[in-house]
């Protein structure tokens, strides 16, 4: 498909401005010579019609949750309610300037204040910051809080424990906070190896980053022992909220002993992923850590809401302004729509969905762990290797049937590192949708045995076929001008 630059026609335009351009003001009086340009910047020249058709066409090359099942493990690709989009785009919200006087933004502040209360109740902690823009940003904020907290206590804890099953963001966040990352092994059941945890947890260790259910979708039966070990040796427990969907209403991380909790609003709380964001990664803490939260905190004096400074112990700001506010509005609307029973139903339905897929597919794809799962299940394609078929081939073949593949090659650590597929069918998926997915997966398992070539050459029906990633990395073409240069070189 053409790039927008290839649709450009000299002299064409698609913008609309007032006629009065303050012509009497001379540009020479505004811009000093050292900053003045001699030619307009080289953007495309297209009409509004061209733009609308171009992007409509582009959108058709994408697959979204509204197109069908999107069973990416650990991504919680649930349905994004439409009313929430409308509410987040009310004029009074979208035109609210972040530095407008407090008295003009009482509605925004009320939502942030109320949302804090809801999050605290749902997760069993005492105060949230709405600042972090994504899960990893929340992790960084949490790690910086731990660092500052121990620093203030004069404790030199320089290590951070991260399970081998953790998402890459956990070790990366610990490293960004200058912690030395120490890996905790999983046992054959897929959960934390308690004995090893006891060995590595020591007085130099700030804490443990963990999810529950963990990153392979399994509830850790020994979560209480984990808590005792980490707290017993003076460490803190950090809860990665990637998998909160399977805890809503049945486990409150704060009750389970977690000191810092992050929530992925774009996962559990139904806000859309937008092709990679924006989401929000708010974090909540127990009371003793409140002084360390980033500025600001929304307070209420009985009459008015205020954006208040977090105080001198605060780690400082982690971004400009206050929050991904538009994402907060959608989250607020979703929680109000669900209510306490609805949140429990989310957990129940997602756990049943995942176990249903596991039960139906385990005959065809050997499961990584032979036990019930949380909201996602891990199966493998390892038995198809003898036909020359990999999990990647299976994933690509699914596309031919109009279904987005699951997360693949995660988990990638022992004992089940091989050919994994992590499937998360959130509560918004119905039995019929899952049955179609299951039938398709079974069909593909037969194809793998009888016609492996069909899988290896898949996908066949998508807008494009498999891509040459090696050349992309070896000879990077990172914008259209690079492409033009490469063409010139080849001439």
């Amino acid at each position, binding site marked *: 498909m053409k*790039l*927008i630059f290839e649709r450009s026609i000299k002299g064409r335009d*698609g*913008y609309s401005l*007032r006629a*009065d*351009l303050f012509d009497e*003001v001379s540009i020479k009086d505004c*811009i000093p010579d050292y900053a003045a340009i001699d030619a307009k*910047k080289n*953007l495309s020249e297209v009409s509004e019609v061209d733009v609308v058709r171009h*992007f*409509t066409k582009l*959108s058709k090359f994408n697959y979204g949750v509204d197109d069908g099942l999107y069973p990416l493990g650990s991504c919680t690709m649930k349905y994004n*309610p439409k*009313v929430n989009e409308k*509410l987040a785009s009310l*004029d*009074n919200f979208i*035109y609210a*300037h*972040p*530095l407008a006087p407090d008295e*003009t*933004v009482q509605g*925004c502040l009320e939502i942030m204040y109320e949302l804090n209360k809801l999050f605290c109740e*749902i997760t069993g902690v005492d105060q949230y910051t709405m600042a972090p*823009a994504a899960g990893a940003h929340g992790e960084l904020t949490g790690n*910086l809080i731990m660092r500052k907290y121990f620093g203030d206590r004069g404790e030199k804890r320089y290590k951070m424990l991260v399970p081998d099953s953790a998402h*890459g963001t956990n070790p990366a966040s610990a490293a960004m906070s*200058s912690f030395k*990352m120490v890996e905790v092994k999983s046992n054959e059941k897929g959960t934390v190896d308690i004995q090893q945890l006891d060995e590595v947890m020591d007085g130099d260790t700030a804490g443990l980053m963990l999810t529950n259910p963990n990153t392979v979708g399994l509830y850790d039966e020994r*979560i209480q022992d984990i808590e005792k070990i980490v707290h017993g040796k003076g460490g803190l427990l950090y809860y990665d909220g990637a998998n909160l969907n399977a805890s809503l209403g049945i*486990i*409150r991380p704060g009750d389970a002993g977690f000191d810092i909790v992050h929530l992925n609003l774009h996962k559990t709380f139904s806000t*859309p*992923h*937008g*092709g*990679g*964001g*924006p989401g929000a990664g708010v974090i909540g803490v127990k009371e003793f850590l409140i002084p360390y939260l980033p500025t600001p905190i929304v307070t209420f004096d009985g009459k008015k809401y205020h954006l208040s400074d977090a105080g001198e112990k605060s780690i400082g700001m982690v*971004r*400009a*302004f206050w929050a991904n506010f*538009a*994402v907060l509005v959608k989250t607020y609307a979703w929680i109000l729509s669900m209510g306490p029973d*609805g949140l429990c139903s989310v957990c129940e339905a997602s*756990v*049943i969905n995942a176990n249903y897929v596991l039960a139906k597919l385990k005959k065809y794809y050997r499961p990584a762990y032979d036990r019930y799962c*949380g909201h996602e299940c891990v199966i493998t394609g390892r038995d198809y290797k003898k036909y020359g078929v990999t999990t990647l081939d299976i994933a690509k073949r699914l596309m031919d049937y109009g279904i987005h593949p699951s997360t693949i090659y995660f988990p990638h650590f022992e004992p089940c590192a091989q050919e994994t597929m992590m499937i998360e069918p959130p*509560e918004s998926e*119905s*039995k019929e949708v899952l049955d179609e997915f299951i039938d398709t997966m079974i069909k593909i398992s037969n194809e793998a045995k009888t016609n492996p070539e069909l899988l290896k050459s898949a*996908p066949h029906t998508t807008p*494009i*076929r*498999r891509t040459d990633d090696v*050349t992309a990395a070896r000879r990077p073409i990172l*914008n259209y001008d690079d492409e033009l240069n490469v063409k010139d070189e080849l001439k």
Partner: protein
Amino acid sequence: MRYIPNTEEQKEEMLKDIGVTSFEDLIEGVPTGVRFKGKLNIPEAISEPELEEKVYETAKKNSDFFLMKPLIGAGAYRHYVPQAEKFLLQREEFWTSYTPYQPELSQGTLQSMFEFQTYLARLTKMDVVIPSLYDGASATAEAALMSLRLTHRNGIIISAALHPHYRETVATYLAPHSPKVIELPYQDGLVDIAKMKESINDDMACVIVQNPNFFGGIENMTELCGLAHSKGTLVINAIAESMSLGLLKAPGGMGVDIVAGEAQSFGMDLNFGGPYDGYLATKKQFLRQLPGRIVGETKDIDGKRVFVMTMRAREQDIRREKATSNICSNHGLNVTAANIYLSLMGREGLYQVSLVNTKAAHYLEKLLLKSGKFEKVFDYPFYNEFLLKSKNSVSIVNEKLLENNFIPPLEISKFYKEERFRGVLLFAATEVLSREDLNKVAKILSE
């Protein structure tokens, strides 16, 4: 529940197929000690009509912001967002898709990122662009970390005319790495070159300068870069008002090493502070130290031109603790927004809108000075924001403006404690303010 389709009967059927009798059997891994048994103390579910009413009521507690034109910028600018962009952005294929890990099903997102990378490369005259970090402040912090890795030095010079939130964010991100931080003072609203000469040395990894700076001032980046480079120090150019790129000389043409920008002005609403979109643009030789996702062009097996995420060996899901950053989810949809915006504005439109911003600001400054109620703080070249000291009390100025549906300018003393900044206001003007609006502002404030 309308968002949870399975019926009770289907649930029973599924439990039976799993081989259990109840949901409780499936969560046997949850020890009773941590099982939450009560009912969450949050409001009972409400219907969609009730929800709409409730949130509308809450929104009404804000001022009527559609009608309230801002005289404030300070890192968040109200520019006109074309309806065609808003309409296109609502397409579910953009909204409800995930990070483009499967290129066969994500060419829309990938091509859009590639196009935006091209736009920014051209606007900044840099080789490579990371299209999405969270915002301008965190992008600046990432750029600072990048400079430490690139130079193996541990000192950082930060302009005092860098947005205060950006400065704080940089400090937060850098705290664990305990760099030596030197604040670079300003002289008449711009970086004090003489002071920069004194503080720059072989230990300095970078100097971070915002341009246009927090006061709206247009810095002489060529001169700054020459000075920094003489000591092997990198120059990070933070840009909070990217609209300026339509009119001002590109950072790459002035010697800047890393541009850390905020793309909010390219088609993003104010949204009370977010989500916006941070970006980085730099030279090819620094590519491998960049944080975050980048899209490259390649071919599929049929030889068709296609787009994929590339140079992935820098990222957290592959390199874990050795990654250049922990960033994963970013602000992808905002990239599409900015791409559509820049496409609509195009070569002529971006130039014109950028031009009218600076002209409107200069027009307003002149009117306010003429009123006799304001005086200059600095004699400096500025883009679309400028400082003026009010002779009347700031609270009266604010009150009058609010009464007349203008969001007041920023009181600079909120961030700068010097005595001379008492009563000083940071005004912004963009294309959303008409000549009549500006005349009205001047009239109200001269009474």
